């Protein structure tokens, strides 16, 4: 078996990749960051705020890993705590109130794994996002830009459209975790990566995402311009859809449906 899938995992994790902030800067204008979950704290692994998508106000939420070692430490390597998910939910509810679409950029190895996170209800925070996003009465688009780690990524991806960058991955468990549980050997991560079908191409085949976004001209300004146009076109369609919420429900209802 080739190591193709694990190579993609490496790319998705590589520190030279665009992070959430780069996407926000590249696509939107006048981004104004909003802080805090109004309950406990402000989570630095999740950035959220209001911005213009050309002339349309939108709510933008991004998991941010940071560009260098210092930023990465400060942002907990993009692993959100419960307050991060609660901040995201607060901003989504706000978007619903003001009829703004929501655009999420997802890049996390998973929800933060720590004592405090458990004490503050990591499981509940994710569960609430899943429930509330399912009935959030405004269009939601999620873009997986790097790692899509399990429930921590899904908590921002219950969307009407989900896109994945060509070298992003989306998985229920890390290949290392999978290998160590199944084969008691975390060095078999490459094999696990193949088995897990976690690349963008696989996710598209499984129907988990709508589209794979090419990384061919990622360094060029056209890359973000192209994404901007894609988001605009998609939102125009979603905004007019009277069955938006039924379709979102059925989008997820279809996975593993048997008649």
């Amino acid at each position, binding site marked *: 078996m080739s190591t193709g899938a694990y190579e993609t995992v490496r790319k998705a994790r590589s520190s030279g990749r665009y992070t959430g902030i780069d996407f926000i800067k590249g696509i939107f204008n006048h981004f104004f960051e909003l802080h805090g979950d109004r309950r406990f704290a402000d989570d630095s692994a999740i950035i959220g705020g209001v911005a213009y998508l050309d002339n349309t106000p939108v709510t933008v939420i991004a998991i941010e890993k940071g560009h260098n070692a210092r930023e990465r430490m400060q942002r907990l390597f993009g692993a959100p705590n419960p307050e991060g998910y609660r901040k995201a939910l607060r901003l989504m509810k706000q978007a619903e109130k003001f009829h703004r679409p929501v655009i999420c950029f997802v890049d996390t190895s998973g*929800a933060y*794994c*720590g*004592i405090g*996170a*458990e*004490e*503050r*209800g*990591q*499981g*509940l925070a*994710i*569960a*609430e996002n*899943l*429930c*509330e996003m*399912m*009935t959030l009465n405004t269009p939601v688009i999620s873009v997986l830009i790097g790692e899509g780690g*399990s*429930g921590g990524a*899904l*908590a921002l991806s*219950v969307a009407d459209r989900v896109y994945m960058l060509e070298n992003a991955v*989306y*998985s*229920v*468990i890390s290949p290392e975790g*999978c290998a160590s*549980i*199944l084969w008691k050997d975390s060095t078999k991560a490459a094999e696990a990566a193949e*088995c*897990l*079908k*976690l690349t963008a191409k*696989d*996710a598209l085949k*499984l129907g*988990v995402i709508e589209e794979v976004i090419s990384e061919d001209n990622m360094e060029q300004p056209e890359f973000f311009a192209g994404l901007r146009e894609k988001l605009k076109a998609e939102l125009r369609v979603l905004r007019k859809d009277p069955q938006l919420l039924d379709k979102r*429900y059925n989008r*997820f*209802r279809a*996975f*593993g*449906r*048997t008649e």
Partner: protein
Amino acid sequence: MPILDFLYKPKNELEKGGRAVAPIQADANEPEKTCPNCHKAIPLSRIWANFNTCTCGYHFRMSARQRITFITDKGTFSEMFKEVTSQDPLRFDGYKQKLETVRAASNEEEAVICGTAVIGGVKCMLFVMEPNFMMGSMGSAVGERITRAFEYATEHRLPVVGYTVSGGARMQEGLISLMQMAKTSGAVKRHSDAGLFYLTVLTDPTTGGVTASFAMEGDIILAEPGATVGFAGARVIEQTTRKTLPKGFQKAEFLLEHGFADAISPRRYQKSLVSMLLKMHCGGDEL
């Protein structure tokens, strides 16, 4: 049983009533099980007579069928969605064989059993997860059965009682298993938005993707004494953070203390508590 009996702690053996604690004399050759808490060897018949708990209060894990027998009114459980079984959407290496082995060993087709039942006179939809089937992991069939249970309950205006026990998502089904978290949550939300009642009983252990979806979405959340409930596994947290975990971390008592469960519910009084809560959510006489 008077209504607040389940809150009452018996002071001596006699007050514990006739049903439990040592009414059964074990014969000498009877198989025994050693309690991991008090380290005493207890005859199986005595454990069974005590709702699968030790006299010291330790709650042993329990199969789904056993729970159904002990929580429902006799003969009222009618199983549904039995035809929904696991597929192998990723053709994951070794998964098919694993399923066959587990099915033979557990005598169950999947890690959750659903159906309508009457509990304390109230009709409801009941789902009970099965620890002996890949530790209650959630694959597409578990997600589908639970989703159908909520959709049926919404349509027929039934409350839902759910017993959770799970190691999390079933990794052999990859992304399809991850999507079950969103799918089940959507069905719970629709049931909730229809004004219907959902009660969860968290049992040992409830972790990962199940904690981060339908286990935590109940209107009322009960936990069995000593049950481990959390999102990330304790060992993983210890390895990642290199910190010693506080005593009782992720136990039911920890959940109660941090505000994530409404009450701890010992099995002995569980049926009366569940019955009472169901009745309270069925409406009543106009004042």
